[in-house]
């Protein structure tokens, strides 16, 4: 009868695994960016990624990302990215187009960090088509 005690745990585990859905694989568009700890632009960075990096977008009933943010998994990290930075197709990246020129700058960690922050801090817009 002891296994009856484990039953709720097993049922819960089953629900938890079905709670999550993989929306798809998307690609990061800006030159550099941060996977955020929470869905706030100024929240801490879990990891820095660069243009064209594939990210798994996850839908989970337990995580509320807000309309502008996507809940993502990048390597072992799970965090948040602005939806406007994601593309279904692999983007045409500056560092991919001009690899030898870009590599020559040998950007340090601080520069990579700030470049990612820069994309978070911009207020971006486009006037509409007439």
């Amino acid at each position, binding site marked *: 009868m002891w296994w009856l005690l484990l039953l709720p745990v097993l049922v819960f585990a089953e629900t938890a695994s079905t709670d999550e859905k993989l929306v798809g694989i998307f690609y990061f568009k800006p*030159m550099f960016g941060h996977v955020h700890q929470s869905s706030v632009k*100024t929240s801490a960075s879990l990891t820095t990624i660069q243009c064209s990096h594939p990210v798994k977008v996850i839908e989970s009933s337990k995580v509320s990302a807000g309309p502008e943010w996507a809940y993502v998994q990048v390597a072992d990290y799970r965090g948040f990215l602005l939806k406007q930075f994601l593309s279904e197709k692999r983007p045409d990246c*500056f560092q991919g*187009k*001009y*690899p*030898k*020129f870009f590599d*020559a*700058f040998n950007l340090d960690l601080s*520069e990579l960090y*700030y*470049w990612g*922050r*820069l994309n978070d*801090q*911009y*207020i*971006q*817009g*486009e*006037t*509409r*088509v*007439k």
Partner: protein
Amino acid sequence: MINIFRVKLALSSFLITTGLLAQTGKLQEEKELEVVNFKSIKKVLEQDGLTEASKRKAQQVQVLKKEQGKLESGRFMYPTESELWGFVSEYWLVKNAQLLNWDFEKPDYALERSFSSTMENLGFYQKKFKILLVNTPSLVKASIPGDNELIFLLSVPFIKSLDLSKLEISLLLFEEFIRLEMGYFKKNVATEKMSKLAGSNFQGGKPDLSMVEELLKNYTSQINQKGYTFQQQFELTKKVDAYLKSSPELWNTYFRLLGKIDRFVKSNTQYKDYVKLYPSPEMQVKWLSPPEKVL
């Protein structure tokens, strides 16, 4: 009859022997050559269309080799001029992150909507822009080129000190947009090296990064020290005036804004450099004012 038969037999045996001799008379090397020499089976190959296929294959290999060469050479390209402006502008912002202090929690001024709406009211469509708010009084405003987009820098302490409305901020940005469109920034900052190297190839060598270093220096000097001339400011003011004339509300707000800035920078030592960089709000007000009638 028997004689005729004998003659025929002798003739046919002669022919058979000659034929056999002719067949076996080839040198071993000749036979080997026949095996190696595809000419001997050329007809068969032609009939099967194999020669054509082999020609096509050779052409494909050549095309692929050419493409591969192009790709390899493309890896050693300098970006185009537009891409270079975008890259250098952002690199300059990254390099000056601490000085400009743009990495901070900002108030939501809803600038994206108000600036878009002002631009659209004035007839400017499909313009991509990025606004970066900085938390320093040492840089009031600036517009720098992006890759097919506009990058605006705007000081939050300045906005707060002047208590600017959304419309006033949008007009300040609009003035910066026109300044960038008039090409003054690029003209003041660009170098010969940049125009020479942009879009070219450096295969077999290293990229000349001194070109970017020079541009970064010019950015700093233009934004913090050099600024714009009276002539450039006059032309800019007249252009903004022309665009805003169709909308009296916007024109009046712009006119009042210049007066507000003039009074503020004159009374606040923290902003004493503003007049040197953007000469001058007082003159701008004069240029916009209707000529006084002499009685």
